[in-house]
């Protein structure tokens, strides 16, 4: 069974309580409860919690009632849906120094996925459904990095002398991150 990609907004809604569904799989019930408590306590970020939950749901995707739970969260036809890639920031239209801070967030996400990918490397090689899920995440992240990269280059071009150095350093960092994704190029 395929688990919907991590980019689906329902994961966030499930953990922030916006989506209040009564789950049926015991592992899922307990894990979601723990994640909500930890997010409320401030001991875990919602991004980390979503990532952990997605990895474990993928691992236990064939467990009893997981299919029903996915349907209750993502809709009855969740298996057939092609999830569009959401774009949170349109840097082409909204070039501003503040986007550098957005890129920092992306960097953190990228590093997190990289760590998760490395950990699960052996499993990925043998489980097609996991490969599909993770590849979708990689494609999504590549898209995000690509947008950021282009945006930052534009920032670089328009910024004044004093800010230029900061921006240049950020672009160099983005290039380092980008080299990681080249590994996944087909």
């Amino acid at each position: 069974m395929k688990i919907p990609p991590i980019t689906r907004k329902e994961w966030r809604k499930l953990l922030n309580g916006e989506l209040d569904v009564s789950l049926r799989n015991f592992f899922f019930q307990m894990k979601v409860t723990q994640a909500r408590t930890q997010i409320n306590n401030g001991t875990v970020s919602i991004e980390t919690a979503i990532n952990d939950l997605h990895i474990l749901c993928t691992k236990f995707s064939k467990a009893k009632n997981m299919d029903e739970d996915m349907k209750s969260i993502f809709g009855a036809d969740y298996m057939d849906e092609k999830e569009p890639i959401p774009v949170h920031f349109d840097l082409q239209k909204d070039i501003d120094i503040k986007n550098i801070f957005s890129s920092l967030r992306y960097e953190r996400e990228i590093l997190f996925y990289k760590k998760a990918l490395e950990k699960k490397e052996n499993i990925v090689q043998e489980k097609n459904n996991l490969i599909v899920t993770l590849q979708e995440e990689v494609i999504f992240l590549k898209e995000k990095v690509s947008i950021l990269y282009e945006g930052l280059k534009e920032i670089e071009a328009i910024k004044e002398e004093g800010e230029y150095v900061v921006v240049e350093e950020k672009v160099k960092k983005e290039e380092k991150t980008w080299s990681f994704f080249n590994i996944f190029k087909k």
Partner: protein
Amino acid sequence: MESKLYTFEEVVAFIKQGFVLSLAGDERVLSKLPPGNWIGGTIPYFMDVDCGKFNQELIFVNEIEMYNSEYSIKVYDENSILNIASDSYDNGYSLLILPAFQKINEVYSIQTENINGLYDNPIVGWVSGMDLNSSDTPKTFSGLTGKMYEDKGVVLHVKLPENLFAQVDIVNIFNPDIENDEIKFYNNSFDVTSCMINGKDVNLAEYVTENGIDSKLPLIADYSGASINVCIKEVDVENGKVSFFGPLFKSKSYKFAKAIPSYINEFDDKTKELTANNVFSCNCVLNYLYGDLEGKKINNAAGPVTFGEIAYNLLNQTLVVLTIDEI
């Protein structure tokens, strides 16, 4: 090997043949077993394959199938028990036995949610106990050394091949009565004096007494759809304190359960989906006693009748089942 009660001699033979086993029985028989690949805990109450039984001579055996894979037996104290998930394999499960009424039990149950990687693999197991009409004390055993413990937990970590995965499920015959008051607690604790009932500060012992609440009914919290019970151990009106068999959490809201007319009928109804190939199962001694389950049969749920059930968290009055399935 079928999970059921066996004679002492049969169990000795299993150990000598090198089977990996989880054992439950009276202290006097478990302490005479030879060293081997087994863990154990004390209890004389069982749900055998044919019916519920009290027996101090037979031993309940769960053979742990190895699938040509690995396992490890570890002993934990109150300081190390929170490392349990870190010691598990990448894919597998951990079978835990804790002794009742000990600090390790309290530490594990209150701090479970802080365990790193708690949900990476199923953690299942039970809390050992004793004949309630005796002065015995709960014990655990590591068969590797043959040592018996009063204050330590024993764990069998099992690795599964990549084509298999373990999953844990529960059967709770109770439901919260939605008409009942909502109760919240100020601390994470086994013992309660004051609590918040419908937004007002109330002494729980007085509330239980004045409202004629049946102390055999558990408090229930909702865990994203799972009803999780916490059972009353004692209502001490004189000192205004209620003690519980499990911890109450300040982050949760609780309601007392609806009364049920027949425990066995509820189990019959709610265990229909259970299959006979369970790796492990256990049920609560409170269900056994309050539901008068001695001599009555619960289908496909043979196992020790325990002083607490573990399905990641410490549970009360709940049937726990571990199964292994193909990915």
